[in-house]
């Protein structure tokens, strides 16, 4: 082929119309296939047993794909905040970068160091990924749906599992996620990995407390642990809980950052201190699984926060639009809105990551125990009083409580001599080995 022809083909391939055309073609293909095979799955869609399984499969695919896209988004956002372009060589504006990354991970050599605890070493990434994925079971993606060919009044739920203990299940699964990290750190037989794992455990335990306390306040208002009920309440009244409980949301947000091990709380994998943290010894697909787990965890965390505070699939605040519709197009709109909200939240996660520096470990602990936990306790006490006098379901009482606690905190902060996270000189002077003492000798006198 002539050089000019090559250039012409290259220019054609680079044009945005190719990718738009490919997208439209793909959509048409999938849509056509779905339309052609419609009689095959028509009854499955209407069945209360099979429909959740279809939802589960679809969402699992979607989430695993979107983690790959998240990684691209992360790199792009990182680049944009630092005045760079980010990956822009593979595909159109770098859109095929996730494919290249995935291929790279698959083809890399999978190294298992000789001195690791083999079963645990192999188990850790699987555990990490599995646990971060099972949290999706109770996310109420789009409420109830009534297919036109169903009996009038009958609906199926787009939630995979409707658990009585919904929020508790998510909390339990969320904190189980640290098992993978601790196991990886322990099994690696490497002190830095182990240190990363230990940090993760300590951090998780500390931040469970403010998270739990904050959620107790919210649950006193909702009166139910079922996520779909909480979302339905918000959608019907139009009063999202973030407007009623802003301070509670703040606590959950900060704890959520800590639970997902994201910056500014990513101490378990602090590169500057711990080489690579708990996944130092991992390579190839096992490393990728940790990566996927982190992003899946992020998506679960965002989905939980959205369901609890931002009305889940409810499209607009202060309006009950779509709240009681069960048609299939309403379901699709709700699903799109839920996913859009998750996207926004993940954008916030990433933006925060590239804005804030990492905390020191003592700062992290001080933030949890000295500021978030007392605020949570105060809120719980206040909510208990409100519950006793029967005002825990009234929006102005809850809002007033939140504002009151905020004002008290501001007042205390105005008089504090130190920032909440403390300073270096606040560290205890352990003086284990005073200068001049030979470190090998222990003085028993």
């Amino acid at each position: 082929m002539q050089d000019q022809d090559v250039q012409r083909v290259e220019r054609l391939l680079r044009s945005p119309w190719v990718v738009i055309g490919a997208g439209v073609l793909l959509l048409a293909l999938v849509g056509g296939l779905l339309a052609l095979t419609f009689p095959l799955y028509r009854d499955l869609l209407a069945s209360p047993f099979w429909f959740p399984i279809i939802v589960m499969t679809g969402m699992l695919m979607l989430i695993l794909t979107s983690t790959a896209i998240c990684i691209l988004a992360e790199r792009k956002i990182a680049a944009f905040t630092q005045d760079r372009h980010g990956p822009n060589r593979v595909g159109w504006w770098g859109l095929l970068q996730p494919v290249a990354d995935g291929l790279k991970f698959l083809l890399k050599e999978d190294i298992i160091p000789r001195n690791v605890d083999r079963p645990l070493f192999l188990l850790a990434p699987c555990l990490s990924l599995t646990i971060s994925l099972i949290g999706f079971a109770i996310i109420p993606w789009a409420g109830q749906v009534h297919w036109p060919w169903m009996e009038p009044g009958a609906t199926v739920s787009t939630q995979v599992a409707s658990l009585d203990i919904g929020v508790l299940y998510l909390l339990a699964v969320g904190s189980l996620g640290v098992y993978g990290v601790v196991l990886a750190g322990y099994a690696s037989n490497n002190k830095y990995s182990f240190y990363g794992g230990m940090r993760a455990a300590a951090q998780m335990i500390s931040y469970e407390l403010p998270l739990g306390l904050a959620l107790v306040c919210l649950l006193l208002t909702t009166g139910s642990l079922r996520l779909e009920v909480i979302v339905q309440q918000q959608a019907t009244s139009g009063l999202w809980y973030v407007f009623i409980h802003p301070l509670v949301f703040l606590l959950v947000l900060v704890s959520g950052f800590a639970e997902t091990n994201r910056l500014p709380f990513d101490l378990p994998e602090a590169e500057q201190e711990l080489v690579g943290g708990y996944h130092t010894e991992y390579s190839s697909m096992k490393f990728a699984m940790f990566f996927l787990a982190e992003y899946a965890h992020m998506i679960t965390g965002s989905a939980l926060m959205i369901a609890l505070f931002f009305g889940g699939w409810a499209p607009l605040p202060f309006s009950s639009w779509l709240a009681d519709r069960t048609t299939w197009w309403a379901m699709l709109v709700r699903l799109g809105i839920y996913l859009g909200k998750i996207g926004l939240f993940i954008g916030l996660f990433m933006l925060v990551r590239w804005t804030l520096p990492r905390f020191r470990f003592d700062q992290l602990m001080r933030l949890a125990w000295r500021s978030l936990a007392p605020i949570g306790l105060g809120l719980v006490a206040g909510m208990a009083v409100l519950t006793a006098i029967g005002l825990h379901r009234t929006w102005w009482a809850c809002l007033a409580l939140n504002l009151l606690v905020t004002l008290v905190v501001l007042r205390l902060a105005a008089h504090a001599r130190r920032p909440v996270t403390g300073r270096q000189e606040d560290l205890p002077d352990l003086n284990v080995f005073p200068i001049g003492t030979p470190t090998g000798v222990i003085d028993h006198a």
Partner: protein
Amino acid sequence: MRDQDVIVLQEPRLTAVERLYLPQILDGLRTTLRHMFSLARRRQTVRQYPEDTRQGRGELRIANYRGVHRLNKDPHGRVACVACFMCSTACPVQCIHIEAGESPWPDREKCPVKFDIDELRCIYCGFCEEACPVDAIELTPHYELVGRTREEMILDKEKLLAVYERTKELKPRKNPPITDYGLTGGQPPEVSRPNVQGKV
């Protein structure tokens, strides 16, 4: 050190708002968002290297750039080096290897029989250029130097002279040979003066 020489720095006292940490976070987010959505700033900062080079933009300071070496030729087309070993003596990493021979020309005593520079060992400090009394060895603005083997990266006399042939239009040899110590390189001041444009 005397006591009065010691400067004690006090950490600035934080205001109540700063101690809360949250407004500062929002401030930081505003900064990153501002950078995120400013395409002009990004375009100004980044050069898409293989397509867009500093030289292509006219931002490369040709006279000062320390890239691949070259051996200059004098106006008669002879190698300008007189094999005085000044450059190999000045070289901090001993990457220049010279073997001298008797010069066939009447105006100098010696000329290099062998002149090898190990480009992998070189740290591109430019001391050889400064040491050269006849301005025979010079660093060029060429930086795209690749090779498949280590042997290939040792440039001999012929290759160094070929580099001169390639770059003599871009960066003419300073003539007469004793010059202003490479300060201007015979270029107009706006090209040769360092930091003529503000840093981005």
